[in-house]
């Protein structure tokens, strides 16, 4: 049975609840970046799409792929590959967090999580746009 408007609203609330439960620190950032439209089904897909984008950026797996690409084109003067990617914090942030830089490689690998969410998005899209065999 295709997803109804009510189903989509309930699932959107459920995703928000899961985010608050498992990653409260990111909940605000994700919700702030999520646009709202006047269609519950689209809202659910937009929320899951924003969530994908958010965690993709925080995935160590993504970091490895980016570093591989950069190393394909850029070398150190002695021809060795670049050893990592990091973010240097401002002096004020260094004082607060007691670290000089954040190595992007230590981000957790979210590849599997992203794959699962991607499959769920595809399922939802199929539920929202059911096509018969002759269509």
């Amino acid at each position, binding site marked *: 049975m295709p*997803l109804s408007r009510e*189903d989509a609203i*309930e*699932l959107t609330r*459920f995703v928000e609840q*899961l*985010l608050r*439960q*498992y*990653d409260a*620190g990111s909940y605000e*950032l994700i919700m702030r*970046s*999520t*646009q709202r439209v006047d269609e519950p089904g689209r809202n659910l897909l937009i929320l899951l799409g924003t969530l994908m*984008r958010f965690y*993709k*950026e*925080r*995935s160590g797996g*993504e*970091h490895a792929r*980016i570093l591989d*690409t*950069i190393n*394909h*084109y*850029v*070398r*150190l*003067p002695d021809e*060795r590959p*670049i*050893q*990592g*990617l*990091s*973010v*240097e*914090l*401002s002096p004020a*942030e260094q004082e607060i*967090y007691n*670290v000089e*830089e*954040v190595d*992007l490689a230590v*981000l*957790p690998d*979210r590849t*599997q*999580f992203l794959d*699962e*969410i991607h*499959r*769920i998005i595809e*399922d*939802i899209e*199929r*539920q929202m746009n059911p096509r018969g065999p002759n269509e």
Partner: protein
Amino acid sequence: MNKAQIRKQLASAFKKHLSVERETVARLVPASVTEGKLYEAYVLSRIVAKLVDDEGFSLVLVGGPKLKLKSSPGPINRSYPHIELHRYGNCVAELWTDVKFLTLSYSRLMSPSLTRGSYHELDIVVVDAGITGRPPHSAVWLGIECKNTSYQKGLLKEILGVRRELSLFTGPIKTKFSTWPRPYAPADPPSCLVVFATDAAVLEYSEPGEVFGIDFFHEAM
């Protein structure tokens, strides 16, 4: 798949992959600090590919074995790692990240002191080689903005302002590049200005760029 099955799959995915020990979370720097940085690195990976494949530069990272982005922008500090662009064995330009350039208006005013309006940030820049501090607008070959957020009108107005402060609007002038991002720009000095965004809506705002010489790319990670 029905609603109940979707709920079950969502709950399973979150539980399996987002459960992190409390002590691990406590050691992490908040996400807001590194917000947008992996996308910036991703765009950088696309840029270096273009500079090598399309423009024929050789690229060398100098100043350290790791590529460092900055959580807050600033002037060029030559002790930081940066990428040199080599042609025929000579370093002709440099690529830096998170740099504030001195504006066209600052140069016109010939003011002895800097105010907050005297410089603007670019996420990635290619500038003349050997510069220290904030590069003048005239030293910018290429400026890039990376937006991993929903693209809205305010961001278009922001990039139009950056275009204004990089160059005067004019007829087409040859840039420092043969093909990418563009061989000519309606700008004097003829800097290139590029926006990469994860939001496909960026293309709905790209028309003014055709007039003023701003290239918009929708590039999801």
